[in-house]
C-alpha cells in the first residue's frame, strides 16, 4: 500500500510547552485516518505543520514517498494537501461558485472564464455526488453546505490529501450523515482523508484507522473494529498522574455559590448551559471537567454576569444575581479569572499597574478624593509584583510585553487580593508552563484555606482531579456526573467526558 503521508519524529516546541513530541504517523493512500485527542493534545499543531502554517523544529515529512519541506500554505497546495478549517473562510456575499474558484480562477486572457470554471466545478459535483446550488450566496446556505463548499475548494485546487479539522463540531446530526457519505465517496475515488475529532462515536464509524494523541505524543494507533469507545477514552485521557498538593483537609463553611437549573442560550436559542445545578461551600474547590465547548465558558460567564440566564437561578452568598450588573456582582465578592486573558482579562497596551487596578479602580484605597491615587496603585502593584515574583522590567511597561505566566500572575494579584467570597477560575493554567501553572494552583489552594468558594474549570483532567474537592463532569451543557476525585477511576471520567451514559463506567 502506498503511503500518502509519513511523519517521522515531528517535534514542535512553543515557549514553555512541547506541542508535538517526536510524532510518528503513517497515513495510507485512500484511507480515512482519524486523529483523536483532548484539547491541547497537539492535533491542531500537527495539522498546521502539514498545512505549511507551522514549521516543525525536528523531524521529516514524506508525501507520497518523497521527502518534502512544507514551508508555506502554497507549498502544501502544490503537494496536493488541502485543509478544511473548522472556521470557514468564505466570502459571504459571493456565490458558492465564486467562493470555490476564488484565487484559482481559470481565465481567458485577462477576463474570467466563468463557463470553464463552472464546468470544472460541476464535474467535481457530479464525480463526488455533492449536492450544492452553485449560484446561491454563501450567506444564504446552511453550515453543512458551507462546509461542502470548503471541501470543494480544496478539491478544485487538486487536493489528494484532505485534512478536516473537527468537521463535525459545527454540524447537526443529519448534516454529519451527509458529510460522512461525502467522505466515503471521496475515499472511493482514491482521496486520502485525515479527520481530526474528539467525538469517539463518529471516529469509530467513519475511520479506517485511528491515531490517538495525548500530551503531544502518539499514544497508539487502532483499528475501529478492534477497539471500544472505552479503550479509546482511556488512551486519550491516560492514567492521570495526580499532582501532589499540600492540601489542607476540607473545612467547609456556608454555601457561597449556588446554581439551580441554570440555562444559558446563545442568540440562536440553542442552549449552551442546559440545566446546571451545583452548590459550592466556602473552603471548597469544585472542579468542572469536560472537553472544551460543552458549556464551561458560558457557565463561568453567567456567574460573573457577562451572560444572562434564560432560566434558573444563581445565588452569591444567598443573593440572587439575576438583576445585578457585572460591577454589582463583583462587589458581592466575586473574582473572575477568565479563560481568554488577552480578550477578557487584560488591556494589553496598558501599563502593568493600570491592569492591576482594572475593575478595582473605584475602590476606596485606590482613590484620593475623586481622582486616582496613583501612588497607592503603584505601591500595590509593586507589592504584588514582588510577592508573586512577576518578571518585568518596570511596572510602567505595557503588559503585552510580559509572558503568559507573568500576565496571569498580574490577574491573580488583582483578583485574589481582596478576599473574594467566590472565585470563578476558567482555564486558569491554559497556555502556561509548568512552573506558572503550579503557582496558580498554589494561590488557589491558599484562597481555599482562607475560605473562598472556588469554581475551577479546566479541560485538563489530571489538573481538575488533583486540585478539586468535588468534580462535576460537564457534557453538552449538563453536569452528567459528580463525585469526589478519590472515588473514581479515570476510565469512568473519560466516558462521561465523551458523553457516555451513567452506569457505563459504574461511577460510585
Amino acid at each position, binding site marked *: 500500500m502506498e503511503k500518502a503521508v509519513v511523519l517521522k519524529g515531528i517535534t514542535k516546541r512553543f515557549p514553555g510547552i512541547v506541542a508535538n513530541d517526536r510524532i510518528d504517523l503513517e497515513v495510507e493512500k485512500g484511507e480515512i485516518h482519524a486523529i483523536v485527542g483532548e484539547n491541547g493534545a497537539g492535533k491542531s499543531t500537527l495539522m498546521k505543520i502539514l498545512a505549511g502554517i507551522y514549521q516543525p523544529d525536528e523531524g521529516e515529512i514524506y508525501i507520497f514517498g518523497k521527502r518534502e519541506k512544507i514551508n508555506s500554505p502554497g507549498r502544501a497546495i502544490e503537494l496536493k494537501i488541502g485543509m478544511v478549517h473548522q472556521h470557514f473562510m468564505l466570502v459571504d456575499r459571493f456565490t458558492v461558485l465564486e467562493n470555490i474558484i476564488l484565487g484559482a480562477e481559470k481565465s481567458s486572457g485577462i477576463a474570467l472564464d466563468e463557463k470553464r470554471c463552472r464546468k470544472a466545478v460541476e464535474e467535481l459535483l457530479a464525480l463526488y455526488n455533492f449536492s450544492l446550488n452553485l449560484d446561491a450566496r454563501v450567506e444564504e446556505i446552511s453550515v453543512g453546505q458551507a462546509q461542502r463548499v470548503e471541501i470543494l475548494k480544496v478539491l478544485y485546487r487538486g487536493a489528494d490529501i484532505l485534512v478536516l479539522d473537527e468537521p463535525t463540531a459545527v454540524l447537526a446530526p443529519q448534516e454529519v450523515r451527509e458529510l460522512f457519505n461525502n467522505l466515503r465517496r471521496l475515499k472511493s475515488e482514491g482521496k486520502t482523508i485525515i479527520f481530526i475529532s474528539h467525538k469517539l462515536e463518529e471516529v469509530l464509524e467513519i475511520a479506517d484507522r485511528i491515531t490517538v494523541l495525548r500530551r503531544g505524543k502518539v499514544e497508539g494507533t487502532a483499528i475501529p473494529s478492534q477497539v471500544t469507545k472505552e479503550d479509546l477514552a482511556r488512551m486519550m485521557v491516560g492514567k492521570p498522574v495526580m499532582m501532589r498538593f499540600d492540601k489542607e483537609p476540607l473545612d467547609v463553611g456556608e454555601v457561597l455559590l449556588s446554581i439551580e437549573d441554570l440555562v444559558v442560550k446563545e442568540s440562536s436559542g440553542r442552549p449552551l448551559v442546559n440545566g446546571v445545578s451545583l452548590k459550592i461551600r466556602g473552603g471548597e474547590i469544585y472542579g468542572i471537567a469536560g472537553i472544551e465547548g460543552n458549556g464551561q465558558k458560558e457557565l463561568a460567564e453567567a456567574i460573573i454576569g457577562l451572560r444572562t440566564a434564560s432560566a434558573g437561578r444563581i445565588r452569591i452568598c444567598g443573593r440572587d444575581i439575576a438583576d445585578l450588573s457585572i460591577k454589582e456582582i463583583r462587589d458581592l465578592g466575586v473574582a473572575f479569572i477568565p479563560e481568554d486573558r488577552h480578550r477578557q482579562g487584560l488591556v494589553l497596551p496598558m501599563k502593568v499597574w493600570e491592569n492591576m487596578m482594572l*475593575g478595582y479602580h473605584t475602590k476606596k484605597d485606590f482613590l484620593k478624593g475623586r481622582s486616582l491615587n496613583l501612588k497607592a496603585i503603584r505601591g500595590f502593584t509593586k507589592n504584588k509584583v514582588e510577592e508573586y515574583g512577576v518578571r518585568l522590567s518596570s511596572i510602567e511597561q505595557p503588559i503585552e510585553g510580559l509572558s503568559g505566566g507573568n500576565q496571569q500572575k498580574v490577574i491573580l494579584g488583582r483578583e485574589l487580593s481582596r478576599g473574594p467570597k467566590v472565585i470563578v477560575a476558567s482555564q486558569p493554567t491554559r497556555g502556561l508552563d509548568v512552573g506558572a501553572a503550579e503557582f496558580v494552583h498554589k494561590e488557589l489552594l491558599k484562597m481555599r484555606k482562607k475560605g473562598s468558594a472556588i469554581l475551577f474549570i479546566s479541560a485538563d483532567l489530571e489538573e481538575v482531579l488533583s486540585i478539586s474537592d468535588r468534580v462535576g463532569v460537564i457534557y453538552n451543557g449538563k453536569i452528567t456526573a459528580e463525585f469526589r476525585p478519590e472515588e473514581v477511576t479515570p476510565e469512568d471520567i473519560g466516558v462521561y467526558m465523551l458523553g457516555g451514559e451513567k452506569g457505563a463506567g459504574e461511577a460510585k
Partner: protein
Amino acid sequence: MKKGFYIALLRILAPVLAIVLSALISSIVILSIGKSPLQVFYTMFKFSLSRMDSVAIILYNATPLIFSGLAVSVGFRMGLFNIGVEGQYLIGAFFAALAGFSIKGLPAAIHLPLVILCGAVGGMLWAFIPIFLKVKRGVHEVISTIMLNYISYSLIHYLIADLFIDRSQKLIQGLGSILARTPKLSPSAMMPKLHGFLGLFGLQLPRHVYLNWFFPLGILTAALIYYLLMYTPFGFELRAVGQNREAARTAGISPERVYIIGFLLSGALAGLVGLSDLLSYFGYMDMDFPRNYGFDGIAVALIAQNNPFGIIFSAILFGFLKRGAEGIQTLLGVPRETISILQALMIMSIVVITKIMNDYIKRLEKKEEVRLCS
C-alpha cells in the same frame, strides 16, 4: 531605565520625522511647479515667525484646532470616531450666538460664561443623537455623524438666513438685500483680546490681530482633559474601553455608559471650537462662518496621537502652516494649495511612521523581557 528614556525619545521623534519626511516629499511638488523648495520653506518661516503679530495670528489660527483636536481625541481614546465635530461646533456656535444676541443687559462676567456654556451644550446636544443611536440601536457613529454634519449645515443655513436673520440691517441707499446673518452679539458676550494682558509685558499687538483669551483657555482645557484621562477613574475607564472593550466589560465597566458620557464630553469640547472666531472676530454668525475646523481636528488629533499636550503643538503647527500658506501665496505666488498637500502628506507620514515606530518599540520591550527571563 535608560531604555525607557530611549523609548520616550523615539515616541517624540516620530512626529518630527513625519514632518521632515512630508516636507521632503512636498519639495517634489514644489519643484514640479517650478519653484525652489528651499525658498518656499524659508519664506514660510520668515513670513510667519519674524514678526510678533504674525506669531499671534498663528496662535489665533491654532485656537479652534486645539478644541477640535481635543474633541476628536476624546472619541479616539474610547475607540470611537467622532467625525461629527464639524456639525457639533456649528450647532454649538449657533447656540452661543443665540445666547449672545438675544440676552441683553447682563454683565460680561455672567454673560460671557453663559454664552460659552451654551456653546458647549449645543455641541453636546448634537453629539447626543449619534451616541444615543449607537448605544441603543447599534448605528455606527461614523455614518450617523457624517449625516448629521450635512443636516447641521442646512439647519444653520435655515437658522441664520431665515429664522434669526438680522432684519434691522440698514441697506446702503435702500439698494440690494440684507446679509444672511444673525443679529450682532452684545458686547458683554464678546471674549476680550489678549492685547491688554500682553501689553503688561511690553508686547504690543496691532488691532488686526484677534488673538483672545480662548487660546489660554484651550491650553487649560487640554491640561484638564489630560488630567481627566490619566488621573481619574472615569478617564481610566474611557481608555480601557477604547483599548479592550471586552476586558473592560468583564471588569465591571459599562462600555455603553462610558460611550455616552465620553461622547457628550467630546461634543461639549466641539461646541467650543467656533467660539474664538465668533466671540472675537465676527461678533455674529453668517454664511461665511468658518468651516472644516472639525475635519482639521481629526488631523490634529492624529498627528498628536491623541495626547492633549501634543494637540496644542499640532494645532499650532497647523496654525503656522495656514499663516505660511498666506505668505508664500502673497510673496512668491505659490498657490496655497501647496500647503494642503503638505498637510495631507504629513498626516499620511505620521500614520506610517508611528506604526513603524510603535512596532519597533514593542520589539524593544519584548527583547528586554526575554533578556530578563533568561
